């Protein structure tokens, strides 16, 4: 395997792809958004329970590549229990990381396990896969009901 592939398919990503966390429907959800990348066929449905500004539970359903599935799994794990403001800050940090040049430093203190997705920066065609669940989260936390797509988003 090349180093670039090892950077992309890190063990934690392969693990979350194989055994995704927080998968399924959420009863009593009060926030919801749909995301899709029509050219890829990636689909994502995200449901959240937000009480007093805190994300108390979150689930996703959908299908897609290893990067998009692992991203949804790790995203839901990262934002559960966080405030809406904290989740939005993570969204911005994640988006900045995956769209930065491949040599840019990664703030592991802020991103934690999410830093594993730094490898997609070497694969411009795959940035949209990593981003989809985060943009869907951003839509669910905002007021928009518009379906989300990250297909127009490049790596820069």
């Amino acid at each position, binding site marked *: 395997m090349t180093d670039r592939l090892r950077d992309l398919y890190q063990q934690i990503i392969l693990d979350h792809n194989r055994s995704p966390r927080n998968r399924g429907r959420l009863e009593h959800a009060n926030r919801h958004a749909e995301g899709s990348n029509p050219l890829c066929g990636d689909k994502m449905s995200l449901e959240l329970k937000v009480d007093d500004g805190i994300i108390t539970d979150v689930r996703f359903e959908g299908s*897609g590549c290893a990067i998009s599935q692992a991203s949804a799994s790790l995203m839901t794990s990262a934002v559960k229990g966080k405030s809406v403001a904290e989740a939005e800050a993570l969204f911005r940090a994640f988006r900045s990381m995956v769209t930065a040049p491949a040599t840019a430093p990664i703030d592991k203190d802020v991103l934690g396990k999410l830093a594993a997705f730094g490898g997609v920066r070497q694969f411009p065609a795959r940035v949209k896969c990593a981003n989809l669940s985060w943009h869907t989260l951003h839509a669910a936390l905002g007021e928009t009901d518009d379906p989300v797509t990250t297909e127009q988003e490049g790596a820069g």
Partner: protein
Amino acid sequence: MGMVHELTAVPRSDFDVERVRLDFPILQQVHHGRSLVYLDNAATSQKPRQVIDAVTRYYETENANIHRGVYRLSAEATLAYEHVRAATQQFLRAADLHEIVFVRGTTEAINLVAQSFVRPRIGPGDEVLISHMEHHSNIVPWQIVAEQTGATLRVIPMTDDGELDLDALPPLLTDRTKFVSIVHISNSLGTVNPVKDITAMAHDRGIPILIDGAQAAPHMPIDVCSIGCDFYAVSGHKMFGPTGIGALYGLAEHLEAMPPYHGGGEMIRSVSFDGTTYAPPPAKFEAGTPNIAGTIGLGASLDYLRKLDWTALQRHEADLRDYATEALLDVPGLRIVGNAASKAAVISFVMQGVHPHDIGTILDQREVAIRAGHHCTQPVMDRLGIPATARASFAFYNTRDDVDRLVEAVREVRGVFGP
């Protein structure tokens, strides 16, 4: 060993693939120490030096607008452009030169027929018949016409193996059916459809038919008179020519009866504010300055194809298909999607536990270019219950070595994702 082997040595392919490969500059390039294995020919084909040179030469020494100038360059450009029409007529074995309309590609050809031929002839209650394995470009133009006219789109079903269910066809051809539009070779599954039989069945009911030949023309001899179809559409860029140029074959009597598709220069006989009379076909359908350079390039690709031994070429592509099919089926957890009895060298596959995009990325690291996705045939994916496939599609310049590189890379996918 209980098997008796044929003793006569039969060459697996007498097509001189190493010689033709030298004509394709892109196949000579080396990236990160690896040569390119290009297996996305169903999306677009690579271009031989002869095509690239023809386009360059046109711009360097022959460029002028056509059908209007009185000076030497314009007259020569016009001659060159119309010469390609004759070459296209011969390539498709059309009866008449005026039955060849230059368009941007198969998509535009289908839209032209939908709007100029079919739309004026149908209304509420009428039906257009397509099949379940059409490319989006042979679905959406008919949905647009259906919306405009109140007509209905009907679909010939597909079997699990990816063949058209021809038993279901006769009841779908009714008095309401006003047009049939069918793909010759499926871009996502490789299925070769019996278009001559389907045309005969449609014509028995007096129904005109279009054949989408985008995937067929680069891989098999086409004879529109033998097929008997009313329209046939091809794309230059899939036939080793430039992008942005293609051809529509249409029966002369249809083209003469059809209203223009686009209005503008080049397609008129005379214009006044009281009214305009149109040029006869094909000029009637070629409004505006056409893609002259693309047409010259298409001419070079047709010239190139004409000189190849097509019997050997087809044997070579069949060998690649069979060799790749066998080798891929040997990879654990790999399943081939589309197992038609008559199949082109297009192999769609899925792997247990791995999404096709991840396959595509891993193969790309080994400089093996395939397509991953729905291949603009979402109804095919829905019918087969899969979101996407990985697809290797071959052309005559591919080799068994290319297949070996493909299979080696596919085995690495298992290495990354585990058994």
